[in-house]
């Protein structure tokens, strides 16, 4: 029973981290029509910067989360404004560009922080476990789940209840009409990209408690995020949340129940979705 | 046997009824004009007949065969040939390439992977014939995007005939053309043989009334009139729709 609960918390907290990074990726994909392959690298940048703040400089962990988010956001902003925007109407080239940035960011990180150690760290307040209803739960897992829920609610509220969210959803459905209504879509793109990059960077620090930070984390987490988007569906917070938790649970229970299959349970999930419902569980666009 | 028979065709997009229970037939060799205000469902109808979109309900019969679920490329092999409202030529390929690709479309040689296209002399001859007849042979190595819009339209229409189709689906063929260019198209359509059936969607009334033997009027996804050109011209309901449009275009409001 304890094992099941532990797997459950592990799976859901992992799923929350996946949700955080997949949500930004998914909204950018749905709105701007491009896959930001560097999104995973932004997560990684955040993780490393957060480590420097929280561990090297021994400052507050949550400050690390914030600065990690800012670092990710600034890198993302640079990529979007200085590069992506200049390749207007060339989605293939834009995607390739982000791919190039994965290389650049990964290697910059190796240059600055060195390549070989896996850095793992936790907020000091979240060490150890606590009892809930008589059962022990890891504190950091619970905190991640809590943060994930809060962010999910905020993002969902932004998406459904604000004018900005309505503009983003309109932009996803019909770009020409939205511009025709006098909305500066380019500015919306930049804001969305910035927000997504911030969340990615912050998630990098939050998720470091589970995944740590290492030099090819950018590609690994990108892969996870992409599978979450395929499974959960494109363009919505709900899709990213459902997909994230689904993949988190599938992976955790898969590894526990079928250790030989290891990584492949999630690829299996992706293949099943591709065969049965290619647009994803909650997909907006087919 | 009719060239085309459409039965209770309906197409919904989310909550929007683009087409509702549309039924009509087209005889072989007939020239049918389809008119109606913007958003009436004309292009949607074409998309259903040609297979770009699946219907929500209803059936489509082409020369007696049920093609409702048939993919677009198969419909081309049955003899459908379509032009698009916005020019769909391959802008970054040459005039000659566009022509050759079109000509190969219904030939088995289109799957040939190892012989060069220059080996197919008959198709080349045909391409030369087509391009010469529209005075574009000299520009055959020019990228299509470098042609004038009128030349592009001419090419696109000429290519729809290149497949020797049984039925032409022309969606606004003269949009964006000068009146002289439109007149050319009208002439060309008038000269077509009776083995080709023509469905023509257009806003250009000269073109429609010049070519069509029967006119169908669509409004909000329904057929509201279907008959000879003179009758349609005189039909009060049709007048109301178009008058309503004209008034809206001005400053007077229409209830």
């Amino acid at each position, binding site marked *: 029973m304890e094992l099941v609960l532990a797997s459950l918390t592990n799976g859901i907290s992992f799923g929350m981290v996946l949700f955080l990074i997949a949500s930004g990726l998914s909204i950018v994909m749905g709105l701007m029509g491009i896959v930001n392959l560097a999104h995973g690298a932004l997560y990684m940048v955040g993780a490393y910067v957060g480590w420097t703040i929280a561990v090297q400089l021994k400052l507050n962990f949550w400050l690390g989360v914030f600065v990690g988010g800012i670092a990710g956001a600034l890198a993302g902003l640079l990529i979007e404004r200085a590069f992506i925007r200049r390749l207007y109407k060339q989605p293939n080239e834009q995607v*390739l560009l982000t791919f190039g940035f994965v290389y650049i960011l990964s290697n910059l990180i190796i240059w600055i922080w060195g390549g070989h150690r896996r850095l793992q760290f936790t907020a000091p307040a979240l060490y150890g476990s606590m009892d809930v209803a008589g059962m022990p739960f890891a504190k950091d897992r619970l905190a991640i789940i809590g943060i994930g829920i809060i962010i999910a609610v905020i993002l969902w509220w932004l998406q459904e209840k604000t004018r900005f969210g309505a503009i983003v959803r309109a932009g996803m459905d019909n770009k020409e009409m939205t511009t025709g209504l006098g909305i500066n879509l380019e500015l919306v793109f930049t804001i969305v990209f910035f927000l997504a990059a911030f969340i990615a960077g912050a998630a990098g620090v939050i998720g470091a408690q589970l995944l740590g930070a290492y030099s090819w984390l950018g590609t690994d987490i990108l892969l996870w995020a992409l599978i979450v988007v395929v499974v959960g569906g494109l363009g919505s917070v709900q899709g990213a949340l459902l997909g994230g938790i689904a993949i988190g649970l599938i992976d955790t229970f898969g590894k526990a129940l079928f250790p030989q299959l290891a990584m492949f349970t999630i690829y299996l999930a992706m293949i099943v979705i591709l065969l049965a419902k290619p647009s994803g569980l909650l997909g907006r666009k087919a | 046997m009719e060239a085309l028979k459409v039965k209770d065709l309906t197409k919904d997009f989310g909550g929007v009824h683009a087409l509702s229970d549309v039924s009509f037939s087209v005889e072989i060799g007939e020239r049918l004009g389809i008119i109606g205000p913007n958003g009436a469902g004309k292009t949607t109808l074409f998309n259903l007949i040609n297979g770009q979109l699946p219907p929500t309900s209803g059936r489509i019969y082409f020369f007696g065969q049920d093609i409702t679920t048939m993919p677009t490329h198969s419909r081309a092999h049955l003899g459908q040939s379509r032009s698009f409202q916005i020019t769909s030529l*391959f802008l970054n390929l040459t005039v000659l390439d566009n022509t050759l690709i079109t000509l190969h479309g219904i030939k088995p040689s289109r799957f040939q992977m190892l012989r060069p296209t220059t080996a197919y002399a008959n198709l080349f001859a045909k391409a030369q014939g087509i391009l010469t007849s529209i005075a574009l042979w000299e520009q055959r190595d020019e990228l299509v995007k470098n042609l004038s819009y009128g030349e592009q339209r001419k090419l696109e229409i000429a290519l729809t005939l290149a497949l020797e189709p049984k039925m032409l689906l022309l969606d606004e063929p003269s949009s964006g053309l000068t009146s002289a260019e439109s007149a050319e198209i009208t002439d060309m359509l008038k000269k077509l043989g009776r083995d080709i059936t023509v469905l023509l969607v257009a806003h250009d009334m000269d073109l429609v009334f010049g070519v069509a033997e029967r006119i169908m009027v669509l409004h909000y996804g329904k057929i509201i009139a279907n008959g000879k050109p003179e009758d349609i011209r005189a039909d009060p309901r049709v007048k109301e729709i178009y008058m309503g449009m004209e008034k809206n275009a001005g400053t007077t409001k229409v209830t």
Partner: protein
Amino acid sequence: MTTNKIIEAIRQPWQLQLIRFSPYIAGALILVMLPAVMPSYVQTVWTRFLVFALFASSYDLIYGHAGLLSLGHAAYFGAAGYAVAALILHYNVDSLWISLSLGILIAVLVSAGFGFLALRVSGMYFLLVTFAFGEALYAFTWNMPWLSTPGMQGIAGLPRPSLGIPGFSWNTLNFYYFILIIFLICFFLVYRIMNSPFGHALRGIREGESRMRALGYNTWLYKYIAFITTGAFAGVAGTLFIYYNRFISPTHVSVTTSFMPMIMVIIGGSGTLLGPVIGALVIVFTEYFASLFTPERWPLILGAVFVAAIMYARGGISIHLSRLWKRLNNRYGSIKS
């Protein structure tokens, strides 16, 4: 006009054909003669260039001509390589003919499988799925002890292939010529495919898939065949690679290796015959020189060059070369018919 006159009109006299083909002839001559006079470690760089030129050309078929952005192309390259390596490791079979056939077969099977699933979605999703499959294969090769020489990741100590010719032994130069022959055969095949009705159709699909369907082309089938063809050529490149490299590891199936043909195609020029080859030339030789001076910073430089090429070198080097060539032709060549 009679058919004969048409053929006369479109086929040019042999002198013009020669001029048109002269860059290729010159290139082939250089490839044959130049490495012979270079030291053997430079010959290995030329060999590496040929392997990657083939890899890049295979990628261009699906990216430049069909217009499908596929990540994870190293999956077919590496799968072939691993198949051949495993054959040598476990069954001691080193005959070239068997290995090459197996390599191509495995690459075709993998690309047929991945391609079928990937083509169920389009655009962005297609990208994601091809990427995920590539990474899946990477994880697979990492986790399968059967695919490793004991004690390490990957298979090492691979010998050169056996041609079944008694008394024959390999050296750097004749190995280079061996690779060159296979490369030229494949290059010729790619050339034919590019100019065939199939190749034209791929470019049509790239430019306007909807119209192609209305013209009677089963575009899904074309994309699928292109995907598998691409996989087959990548498989040849992968097989040749392990003979050159004598070692294969999971990295050769991963994103870092998939990146190689992509940057070569971008720099050299996509959708052209020579573009990928030129790109491979530039990248492989630059990499060689960089490895002498800044081996750790090379990936960073590569990434920066890639970004710069995408932003500023539209059409790649080959566009500039072909413009230059056209200008030369207009000044010194004769008018076309």
